[in-house]
């Protein structure tokens, strides 16, 4: 009934009837136009010759300003030729891949282990404690790390005392330790929190499956591999696709805190490079081009990961 009535009204009448709802919705749309779509339009600077920060994006001066050489792709070509290119890609993908192979599976293992703990109370306590580091900011964790890893810090103190090294050093000032620091600190911070989703998925498994397996004589390990893991494989797949899509996204919040000029040869990831090129070098067009390259590459990765997992085990994100 209602449907038929609505169709009889003109567009304008309908709009007037729902004017309050429209105002509410359009405020949100306006926000998105400014804070999501205007920056997308701003990507144009990647194709301009050399954007200067004083020129407003929405001005004739900007639109009329000179385009970059090579049909606008000058900055992209420049990036591929950049002597930092290989280094930046190695650092970005290196850190992300190790995280994918180490920091991605370990929360699953933790969830499986925790699920095997018999005392409900103990389990709850461990879980609560494991969330704690997630609520520390990267700045605070960076502060803890610089304290521990400084020349007179706890880490060196223990190493010197046990006679492993003669003299401590400030680990964050040496590039060769950077990856380990990044990977381990990320693991420490997010292990418990990342396990939440898996624990929830495990809690949703039908208990009768375990009952039946036990009657058939399946041990604990067998139950984990034949029931628990297959039951949460869908969740694992979705999160895996997202992780692959984020391979170009090094954890900026983290690396920005731990980065410094001394460890730069192993810490210069795409995001850090973009930031320095723009904010220190004032080369906005070049930085925007690197940023755009990153988003396009990330989207392609997400797409491929989605396709592949769809083929393999019929779970996909979209």
């Amino acid at each position: 009934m209602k449907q038929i009535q609505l169709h009889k009204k003109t567009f304008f009448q309908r709009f007037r009837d729902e004017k309050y709802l429209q105002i509410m919705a359009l405020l949100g749309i306006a926000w998105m136009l400014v804070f999501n779509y205007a920056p997308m339009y701003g990507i144009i600077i990647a194709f301009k010759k050399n954007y200067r920060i004083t020129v407003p994006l929405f001005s004739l001066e900007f639109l009329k300003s000179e385009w970059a050489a090579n049909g606008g792709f000058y900055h992209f070509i420049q990036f591929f030729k950049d002597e930092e290119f290989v280094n930046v890609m190695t650092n970005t993908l290196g850190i992300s891949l190790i995280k994918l192979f180490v920091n991605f599976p370990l929360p699953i293992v933790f969830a499986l282990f925790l699920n095997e703990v018999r005392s409900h109370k103990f389990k709850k306590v461990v879980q609560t404690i494991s969330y704690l580091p997630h609520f520390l900011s990267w700045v605070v964790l960076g502060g803890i790390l610089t304290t521990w890893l400084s020349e007179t810090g706890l880490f060196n103190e223990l190493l010197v005392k046990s006679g492993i090294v003669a003299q401590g050093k400030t680990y964050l000032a040496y590039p060769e330790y950077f990856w380990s620091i990044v990977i381990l600190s990320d693991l420490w911070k997010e292990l418990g929190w990342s396990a939440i989703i898996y624990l929830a998925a495990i809690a949703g498994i039908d208990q009768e499956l375990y009952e039946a397996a036990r009657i058939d004589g399946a041990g604990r390990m067998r139950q984990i591999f034949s029931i628990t893991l297959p039951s949460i494989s869908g969740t694992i797949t979705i999160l895996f696709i997202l992780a692959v899509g984020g391979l170009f996204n090094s954890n900026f919040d983290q690396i920005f805190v731990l980065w410094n000029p001394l460890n730069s040869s192993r810490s210069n990831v795409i995001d850090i490079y973009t930031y320095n090129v723009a904010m220190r070098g004032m080369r906005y067009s070049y930085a925007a081009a690197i940023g755009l390259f990153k988003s396009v590459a990330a989207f392609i990765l997400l797409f491929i990961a989605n396709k592949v997992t769809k083929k393999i085990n019929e779970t996909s994100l979209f």
Partner: protein
Amino acid sequence: MPNRSLKTYTIGDKVLVALMLLLCFITLYPVWYTIVISFNDSTDSLRGGIYWFPRKFTLQSYITVFQDKTIIKAFRVTILRTLIGTVTNVLFTSMVAFALSKNHIIGRKFYMILGTITMFFGGGLIPYFILIKNIGLYDSFWVYVIPSLFNFYNMIIFMAFFRELPAGLEESAKLDGANEIVIFIRIILPLSLPVLATIALFTGVYHWNDYFMGVMYTNKQDLQPIQTFLYRIVASASASKTVVAMPAGVAAQQVSSQSVRLATMVVTTAPIVCVYPFLQKYFVKGMLIGSIKG
């Protein structure tokens, strides 16, 4: 959790418990150590050998923290942006969600497509920075509030919640002549406290812990939140190679700045760490709805 019929504890169980205890220790100890050093006399700490409790207990670092005008100001910025940022974000996002939860409104499909696109594409850091400069938010307190006013992802969570609310209440209010704005404020919001709390907690932790906006979008010291203030100290500390080789005066200053730094870290983190165990139900729920929708 598998409800085992046998109540005997095998070796496997014991190993498991030991492993979990070890994990708890690894998680808690760095935090505990930070607290211990922050309460220890700063020159005494240099001698090393402190592991479990302060050796020379002092509140000096904390007194310094609470007397430092810059730190106090930074805390004020953090508290203000967390309060204002969270309240406005939750109200604005839920308001948009309320409108978009109505299937019949004109253009809804278009609005949703516009929003979904933003989840996959963005302009990136630099065009965003230029925009902030262009619209005059650079070096303004409102840079912490307005750009974080809305979140499409959270909007979807709100929308899903609003759709589950009984339609009857709204209908009767409408018959009484209330318009949608009144309905939203008087009826919908009070009914949505659980979801409002969940989203507010996440937004609040984000605002409390964010340091990057203060680095990127302001140059004024008066506008830097406490996390940005800490960031600047930590970043300079991580880059300085050695303390010992410095002239005595500089080294002593470094040392005292270390305990002040740790004390600031403790003060900054304490509110969240004290509160999260009691609110973890909401955090976990939020994390789960978020992951299902994503």
